[in-house]
Structures are given as C-alpha cells and as structure tokens.
C-alpha cells in the first residue's frame, strides 16, 4: 500500500496495517504462546498419518485396556487402539470443523448482513425478523434437532454450525455497515460520484472486516466446543472415526477403572480451547488500538 521513495527519506516510513497489527500482537506473550501451540497442532493435524505411532482405527487386540506405558504413551482403549494416535487424528476433526465452519458462516453471514444494512427497507425488515425468531430458540436444542435431521457426520456438522452461526456475523456486519454509511469518507465517496457497488465493495465491506476477523477467531473455539459437545452426546462424529468429544463421551463411563481413556482427550480439548481464546483476544487487542490500555 505504502510506496516510499528515497527522496522523502526524512519522513517516517509508513507501515502497512498488517505490519502494525503484527507488531502489537507480538508483544502479547500469552497470544504468542497460543499461536505457537495452534501452529503446532495444525501441523500435527496435517501430518497426522506420519506422526501417529499407530493406526487410529484398527486396534491391536492383544493390547486392549493398556494404561499409559512407553509402548503406548497414553494407553489403549477397549479395542486396543492407541489413545495418542486417536487424539492426533481427532485434531483433524476438531480443526477441520472449527476453521471450515467459520469460513462458511462468514460466506453466508457477511453478504446477508451487508445487504441488509445497505438496502434497508423490506429486505432488512425480513432479515431482522428471521434473526429474531432464530435467536429466540434455545441454540443447543436447535443444533441437536438439525443435526439429527441431517444425521451427523463431518460435513453435516459444519453445515449445522454455519446455518445457525451466520446470525451473529450478519448482525455484526449490518451494524457496521449502518454506522459506516454515515461516515464522512463514505459520503465523500458518494459525492464524488462513486456508485453503490464501488462504495459497497471498497469502503463498506473492507472497513467492516476487522470485527469479522475477530469474531471468526473467537468462533473457532466455539465451533470446536460444539463439535466436542455434540460428539460427546453421540450425535456428531460416529465411531470408529476419532473425535475428542466422542472419546470423552464414550469412555466417560469407564472413568472409575480406565480413566486415561477420557481424561487425556479432555485435557487436550481444554488446552486447545484455551489457546484459541487467547489467540482471539490477542488478535482483538492488536486489531483494535482503542482497546489497548
């Protein structure tokens, strides 16, 4: 964006927004640790087949119900499957659903919210009434009903979360567009003869992206939590495919005897949630200078 020529060397160098944000983010130690942890987990998820010591689905029947040992670091389950390997492959589900669902709900929510704020009138009225009705439902119940109707599974969980989650983003973008419409630079652009499409794309959408990015980053742990919760209830990812929530749900009843089957996935899930929320909060502080204390 900034073009700096050597002839104006005495002027302070202009920094791009990205560089400024990164500079602020870097000083937030908790957020940096969280970022490192998340990058590590993403790599583990991507290369799960190379890293996992055992097959996550085919068990070794001679090794059932092993407690943690040097052979199986986190033990094995009732079918002799290595718990560590299942947790590693479970990261794919958790991250896949967490991240993909956010992109899809943004693709639904941003256009609806932006158009609603821009056009106003009957379209805005209809959208807002739809949002009112949807947000008066108890969300978890709606999730569950929709998911059962769609019969669970990876893709359907993403769809469920996108179908229910776009409301928040749409409301956010609508509010942004409504307030940006009144700003001087949008009026100036209009006065200079910019047509609606130009103003919409260059000024309104671009300037309302910051809160959308923050809501996406904070939405990832929300979706991961929803996946874990639904799989915990036996409605999400069906065995033998591993998911953290599902492992916790199935083996929770064994907690008196084989505690390692549910406690390890629970710890991993808690750490992951912690990292994502720290990342989201760090991003929020870095993107919004007014929030800095």
């Amino acid at each position, binding site marked *: 964006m900034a073009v700096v020529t050597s002839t104006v060397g005495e002027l302070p160098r202009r920094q791009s927004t990205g560089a400024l944000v990164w500079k602020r983010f870097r000083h937030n130690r908790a957020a940096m640790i969280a970022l490192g942890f998340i990058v590590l987990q993403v790599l583990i998820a991507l290369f799960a087949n190379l890293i996992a010591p055992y097959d996550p689905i085919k068990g070794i029947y001679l090794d059932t119900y092993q407690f943690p040992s040097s052979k199986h670091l986190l033990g094995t389950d009732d079918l002799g499957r290595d718990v560590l390997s299942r947790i590693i492959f479970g990261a794919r589900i958790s991250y896949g659903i967490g991240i993909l669902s956010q992109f899809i709900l943004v693709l639904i929510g941003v256009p609806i919210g932006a158009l609603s704020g821009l056009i106003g009138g009957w379209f805005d009225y209809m959208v807002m009434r739809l949002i009112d009705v949807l947000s008066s439902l108890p969300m978890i119940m709606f999730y569950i009903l929709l998911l059962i109707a769609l019969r669970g599974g990876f893709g359907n969980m993403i769809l469920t979360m996108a179908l229910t989650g776009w409301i928040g983003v749409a409301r956010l973008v609508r509010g942004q567009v409504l307030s940006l419409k009144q700003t001087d630079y949008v009026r100036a652009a209009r006065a200079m003869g910019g047509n609606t499409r130009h103003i919409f794309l260059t000024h309104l959408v671009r300037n309302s992206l910051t809160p959308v990015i923050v809501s996406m980053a904070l939405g990832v742990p929300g979706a991961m939590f929803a996946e874990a919760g639904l799989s*915990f209830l036996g409605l999400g990812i069906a065995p033998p495919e591993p998911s953290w929530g599902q492992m916790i749900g199935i083996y929770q009843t064994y907690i*008196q005897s084989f505690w390692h089957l549910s406690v390890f996935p629970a710890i991993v899930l808690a750490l992951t949630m912690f990292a994502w929320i720290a990342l989201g909060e760090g991003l929020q502080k870095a993107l919004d200078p007014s929030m800095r204390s």
Partner: protein
Amino acid sequence: MLRYITLRLAGLIGVLLAVSALTFFLMHAIPGGPFDAQALAQNKVLPTEVITQLNIKYGLDKPLVEQYLTFMLNAVRLDFGYSFTSQTRTVTQIIADQWPYSIQLGLLTLVFSMIIGLGLGLGAAIKQGTWLDYLGTTVSIFCMVMPGFVFAILLQFVFAVRLHWLPTGGWDKPATWVLPVLANSLAPILTLQRFTKSSMVDAMRANYVRTARAKGLSEQRVMLIHVLKNALSPVITVGGPMAASLVIGSFFIEKIFQIPGIGFYWVNAIQTRDYPMIMASTLIWTALITITYLLTDLAYALIDPRVAFVKES
C-alpha cells in the same frame, strides 16, 4: 404498558408456533420411524406388520399436517400423549417426575454462582488493582476457556475417582450435589462476574456518585445507597434468563453425573426418536425462556424508572 404486554404475548405465541412447527417437521424429516430406532437399539428387526400396527396405534399413519394439528390441540391442554419408550407413563408424568431434579441442580447452581460471581465482581470493582481484582480476572478466564463438560470429567476424576472425597454420580445426598453444581457454574459465574464488575465501575464513575460524595455522605452510604442500588439493577437482566436456562437442565452435566433430570431424558428421547417427549420438552423450554425474557423486561422497568417502552410499534 398493557399494549406492550399484549404485543409481547402475541409474539410469544408466534415463537411457540414457529418452534413447534420447526421441531415437528425436522423430527419427521429424519428417515426411519421411532420403532426402527427402538428395534435397532435391541439389535432386532420388527416385522413390517408390527410396525404398521404400532404406527396406527400412535397415529403415525395419518398425514403429517393432521398429526401436527392433533398434537397441538392436545398440547394446549398440556396433554402430550404417551412417550413411545415408556408403556406406563405419559409424557406429562415423565416431565413432572424428572424435572424437579433439573430444577434442583439449576437452582443450586444459580445460588452458588450468584455468591461467587457477584462477590468476585463487587470485590474487583471496589478494590481495583488488588489481589481480589486479579482473583476475579483469573476465575473468569478459567470459566471462559474451560468447557463445562470437560471440567466435569476432570473434577470427577480428581475428587471422586482418585481422592475418593465425593461420590462419582447420583443425586440422592448432598455430597453428590457438589461436583455437578461446581461443573455447571462455569458459564454463570463468568457472566455474573464480568457484568457485575463493569456495571459497578460504570456506576462508581457516575455524576450522582460524585455529587453524593461532594455533599459529604459517608463512603459506606455512597456505596450502599448510590452505587450498589444502581449497579445491581442491570444484573437482573442477565439473572432472569440465566435462571431460566439453568432450570431447564443440562444435557452434559446430567449425563456425566447420572442425574435423572429432564436433560438426561431429552438426550435419550432424541436417540430413540421419542417424538412426543421431544416436542413437549422443546415447547416447555421455549415457553419458559421467552416468558422469562418478558418478565425480566417488565421487572427491569419497575426497578429502573428511566426505562420506558418507547419502541412499542
């Protein structure tokens, strides 16, 4: 005011109709009927004739719209029919028998999180920058990042399985209440702590507080009469809906700690495709939550004279 209440009640009926229709058609959109699911759970296949007979008995052979209308006409009189999975109890009976467990869990959680959440919020606002403030922040961060059901399992593991201090589940004696209430309180504590703190900080900065100090009132009187009273009335707006969402029970906590509440039954009903049970609990919950919102708004208007129902149209 009367006009406002009438409008809100009409809206409530609209929401209930929408929710009932949505739930009904979503449930029926799923391939397979309730008796397939039941037979599958017992590893057997029912003969087609038996399924036809069962469908006729429960009225499942009629057109969907007719089934829906029949259900709704009976539901108005709180008659939700027989549960498909229980031969002896009607849905209304099951709800009447099981809901008290959820209500007890919810109310205990509410009281506990009110004490902790309000206490930490007030402490953090009055003694800003002290250990009390940091304790509040730490607790609220913990409540934010720890999923309730994960915390439940970790608590169960540490205090019941390893240390044997408390039982792993059940609801028959006070010792069994400790862990479920603790695990259930994370979200309410977070909301209450944050809300109380910010509401208090706002009130302490208000002009009327400065005036009260300027006219020489004692610190105690300023805090009790001017700050607390004004800061705590907004807390009611979160407290009402929170109480409603707590007494409808928790799917996770009730499952983990084997509490026979309504959340536990709802999950079972979902898995066995027990239509009447699902419809009844979904409707009752929605009604409860929407009515609570209405009551909260009204209570807020009574407490805070600045609130007026301007947007009536």
